């Protein structure tokens, strides 16, 4: 039951964003999509999440053509955690998590829907906050509510679009730890678009480096993080070291000498 992305192409108007991306993510794997701004990593998560339709290519999970599924069936298979955004109305955490059950119930949620909501709230430690309004939450708590919503959706695949970029260091680590734990305990396949190479190296099983809509390198973080490749992709010299079993990437910063 692996997630297979096969020769996916996508463009915004005339601007080609994904130029034939092919990738396989095994079940229960935590895979990082990395690359500079505009490399296409967010777009790739949105294509798999069913937000965008690709111009060509195939996305399948366990042999099932995901793009050919109906909207609701798709939403029961693949969940999506967007970057945390503003909610224009007052909503409690519990109501926000219930949104994840949208593809599962008809007019109103049933007992099993509420059970999934409770389960997700407990798993993310939001029990104390469940009756609070989203507007009262900190950035980290709001992000946890979004992850809880995707868990309540009860999908086999979880896509996360830069979920850590607005969080402080502690919540970044907590979120990544949590997603990793979910892939282990629930066998969920997770695909995350993320900027921080070192976080990806520390928490993810698989790393994919995108540049200009193409995959440049893929494999375990140790395999993918190549000094020369990273230097070419980011336009910046880096050193890659292994420390306590995980790879770390450091930029080589030269002092700029100003001549006055």
């Amino acid at each position, binding site marked *: 039951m692996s997630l297979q992305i096969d020769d996916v192409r996508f463009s915004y108007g005339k601007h080609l964003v994904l130029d034939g991306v092919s990738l396989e993510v095994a079940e229960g794997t935590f895979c990082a999509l990395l690359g500079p701004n505009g490399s296409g990593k967010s777009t790739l998560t*949105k294509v798999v*999440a*069913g*937000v965008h339709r690709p111009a060509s290519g195939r996305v399948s999970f366990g042999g099932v053509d995901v793009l050919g599924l109906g*909207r*609701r*069936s*798709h*939403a*029961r298979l*693949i*969940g*999506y955690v*967007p970057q945390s*955004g503003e*909610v*224009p*109305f*007052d*909503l*409690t955490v*519990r*109501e*926000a998590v219930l*949104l*994840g059950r*949208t*593809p599962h*119930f008809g*007019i*109103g*949620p049933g007992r099993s829907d*509420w059970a999934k909501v*409770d389960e997700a709230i*407990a*798993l*993310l*430690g*939001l*029990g*104390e906050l*469940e*009756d609070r*309004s989203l*507007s*009262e939450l900190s950035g980290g708590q709001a992000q*946890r509510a979004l992850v809880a*919503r995707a868990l309540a*959706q009860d999908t086999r695949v979880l*896509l996360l679009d830069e979920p850590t970029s607005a969080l402080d260091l502690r919540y970044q680590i*907590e979120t990544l730890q949590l997603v990793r734990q979910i892939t282990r305990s629930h066998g969920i396949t997770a695909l995350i678009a993320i900027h921080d190479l070192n976080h990806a190296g520390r928490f993810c099983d698989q790393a994919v480096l995108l540049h200009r809509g193409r995959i440049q390198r893929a494999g375990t973080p140790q395999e993918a993080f190549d000094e020369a490749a990273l230097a070419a992709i980011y336009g910046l010299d880096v050193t890659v070291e292994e420390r306590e079993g995980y790879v770390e990437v450091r930029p080589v910063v030269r002092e700029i000498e100003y001549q006055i």
Partner: protein
Amino acid sequence: MTTSIAAERDAGTPSPSGGAPAPRADRLRRRTGAWRPLALGAGAVASAIAIVVAVGIGTAGITPGDVWRAIVLAIFGGTLHGDFAQAYSIVTELRLPRTLLAFGAGAALSVAGALMQGLLRNPLVSPFTLGVSPAAAFGAALAITLAGAQTVPAWVVILSALGMALAVSAFVLSLATAKKMAVATLLLLGIAVTQLFEALTSALQFAANENTLQAIVRWTFGSVNDATWSDVQVVWVVLVLALPLVLWFAKDLNAIAFAGDDAAKSLGVNVGALRVGLIVVAVLLASVVVSFCGVIGFVGLVGPHIARLVIGADHRYLLPFSVLTGGLLLLLADTVGRTVLAPAVIPVGIVVAFIGAPIFINLILTRKTALR
């Protein structure tokens, strides 16, 4: 001691353990929102009582008992005794259609406002945001102007207003569809159309003679003074047809309003089609009301907000509750409008802001959490 302090400090971090089972089951009813259907039922009963009471209020000295007898007589038939005949005709031919039109118009505008606010993810939006009311006003003004010195039949003005409102809304929606229904595009198109049609109406007013000008201005005030049973029928039929439809899509509307377009798509909602479809419903509701009653502002903006403050933002309850808040607000405004300076009748379009603004301000101030 140190351990308990450490435990306190850690209270904010994730702890998967829930509360004890007994209070949890007790809380379940409240948390799953079992009180909301009760609040809806109570609101519906209160609205029915308010309608009967409002029919009884007026200069002719009719008691609520008379109102009840007249309603029973009208529905189930029976013999009309001489001394009751006058009260009967006042109730069934004047007061009842007027009250029902006021309630129905307020309800339709309010539910249309709730739809628009959710669909466009913007609490400042009203059913008139896409230019429905200026377009309808222009349609009416055009019919009045073209008729010139002749008195124009009411249904011609109504049809002209309705046709113009629907045509302009269709124009705005088709342009916005070409731009992928982006929210900002819709709002900007609405502003452009509003300005354009206000200018067109002003141009007609500028060119009009005294009598025509008066007729045009009077139309824009918005009132239920000349309510007939056929007006009531049209407004209520549209409202009653629209309600089950919007309730069916309420949970999808929740996804769009609270999660945003991208996340709603990933939750299995056909965002583009749903947005167009429900805006059409909202525009239809607003156009019908404006065509029959003239421009009644404020209810469409404030009705949904009052409902949201009472019952929460979940559209499965917000939409039906908006029907009640909007209906009651306009009913109250009309009742005040026809009694406060009796026998003069102030148009409801003018009174509604006088009544609604203090209620709304009071709700904003007395509520603990900020209105967003």
